[in-house]
């Protein structure tokens, strides 16, 4: 990867919650470089600050310190118009599909708002076709579910709709915060394949947030290992998994359950 393709660069990103005795440093001087078309995994246990970091990159949380450059320019999110422009490029899928939907709005409305975010002026028929195309990309039938409410869908269907949303938006960066941890194993591989397909078609940068080293190895080019708010190790996936330097990384790798060896639960 040459530096020409550098998309997002973060230096010294810090996030502190609370103050005084209750002060917690969730993210502690983290540096990162994400390139175009790269798949990055941020791996760490619960509470290691990976979701906080993801929210900072998304622009949903304001960092306490450090700077983020987007496309070589310092990122500006002060005005709503700036944020809207940023979010045209950066989108996300969250962990829990059940809470990602507004229960009071039909499925159609979620997809229509994607068209609006892109600022496209389309006729009713074009809108319909676009939404239909997005749904067929994720193997859903738009005709069957456009006027359904989210609680009438299964978790897997909901998460696939979230991917359909990403498909419509064509963002440059996708932040996937444990997108597969709440769906069954069968939907999991489908969802991962869809995400990889999206990357191949659009040269999308995908940032995976996960606790699962195995999954990270399967999908990503680069792995960042996060412990207690700090990046303890980073590098190409192969290097990290086959030749871990840190004790914490080795611990994470050895904790992956293996089907072919006997489990030591003692």
């Amino acid at each position: 990867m040459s530096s020409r393709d550098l998309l997002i660069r973060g230096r010294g990103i810090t996030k502190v919650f609370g103050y005084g005795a209750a002060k917690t440093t969730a993210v502690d001087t983290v540096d990162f470089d994400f390139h175009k078309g790269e798949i990055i995994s941020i791996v760490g246990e619960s509470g290691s600050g990976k979701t906080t970091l993801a929210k900072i990159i998304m622009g949903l949380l304001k960092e306490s310190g450090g700077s983020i450059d987007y496309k070589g320019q310092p990122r500006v999110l002060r005005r709503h118009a700036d944020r809207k422009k940023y979010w045209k490029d950066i989108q996300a899928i969250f962990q829990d599909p059940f809470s990602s939907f507004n229960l009071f709005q039909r499925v159609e409305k979620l997809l229509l708002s994607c068209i609006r975010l892109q600022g496209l002026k389309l006729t009713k028929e074009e809108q319909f076709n676009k939404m239909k195309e997005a749904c067929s990309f994720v193997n859903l039938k738009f005709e069957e579910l456009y006027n359904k409410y989210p609680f009438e869908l299964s978790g897997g269907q909901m998460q696939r709709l979230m991917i359909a949303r990403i498909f419509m938006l064509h963002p440059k960066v996708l932040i996937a915060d444990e997108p597969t941890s709440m769906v069954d194993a069968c939907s999991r591989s489908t969802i991962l394949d869809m995400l990889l397909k999206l990357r191949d078609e659009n040269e999308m940068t995908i940032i995976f947030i996960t606790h699962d080293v195995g999954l990270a190895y399967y999908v990503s080019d680069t792995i960042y290992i996060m412990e207690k708010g700090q990046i303890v190790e980073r590098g190409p996936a192969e290097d990290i998994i086959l030749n871990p330097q840190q004790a914490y990384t080795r611990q994470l790798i050895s904790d992956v359950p293996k089907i072919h060896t006997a489990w030591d639960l003692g």
Partner: protein
Amino acid sequence: MKNSFNILIKSPKFMLGAGIFIVMLALVLIFPMINRKDPLEMIALAFQPPSSQLWLGSDNFGRDLFLELMYGIQTSIRVGLIAGVFATAIGLIIGLASGYIGGIVDNLLTSITNIFIVIPSFIILILISVSINSRSSLVTAIIIGITSWPWTARAVRAQTSSLRNRDHVHIAKISGHSTPRIIVFEILPYIASYVVMAFVLQTASGILSEASISMLGLGPYNTISLGIIMNWALVFEAPVAGAWWAFIPAALSIALITFSLYMMNTGMDEIFNPKIRS
């Protein structure tokens, strides 16, 4: 929303409360159209017991108490509703602002709310009522409204600040929706049932506050409310004269109205409580 309404109709408690309330409202709205006399006209001797002419007897000035009661219930319900609207609106706005914006605004608004909670609102109510020269029923209603919002504000704040961190709000944000739009479409629907419940409760307590403050003689002028009927009975010593009809019907009406509203609230609570629902 339509769905919730359909479930609501099946709740016996809600229907009982709503039934009582609607029947009462219909009675007090229709009766004055049939009996077009002035409720303040003196038509009999003082403290006449109930008879076929005067259904609830007469008061100390010889006025028809049944007719007075009809007008009194009307005023009380109106004062209660206006107070409920004001209290709910103020509570909703402060709660939403404090819960959604968070940070320093939240701290500030929460402290203000807490100050209003610890000051006994009834005392503020009395003090404001005493210091205002012209008290119409509207002014009384507004005063009740602006002293009884804090609990609504607190509850709305709590719900909003937990909803604010839900993923669907994040999705709405990164879909580029504006803050007012997010509040109206992503937050309000989730707390709507609670707000309706709070409104019903605020109305009931508004009616009670009006009755208490009027009984002390600090209520609205130039009108008849349930509290004012009780105040007259008290001032002109109806209990001493043995004229139970001068205050018991009014007291029972207050009880019945608030009972019906509380019943509606309990019915709604059972349906909208997220633990029982779905």
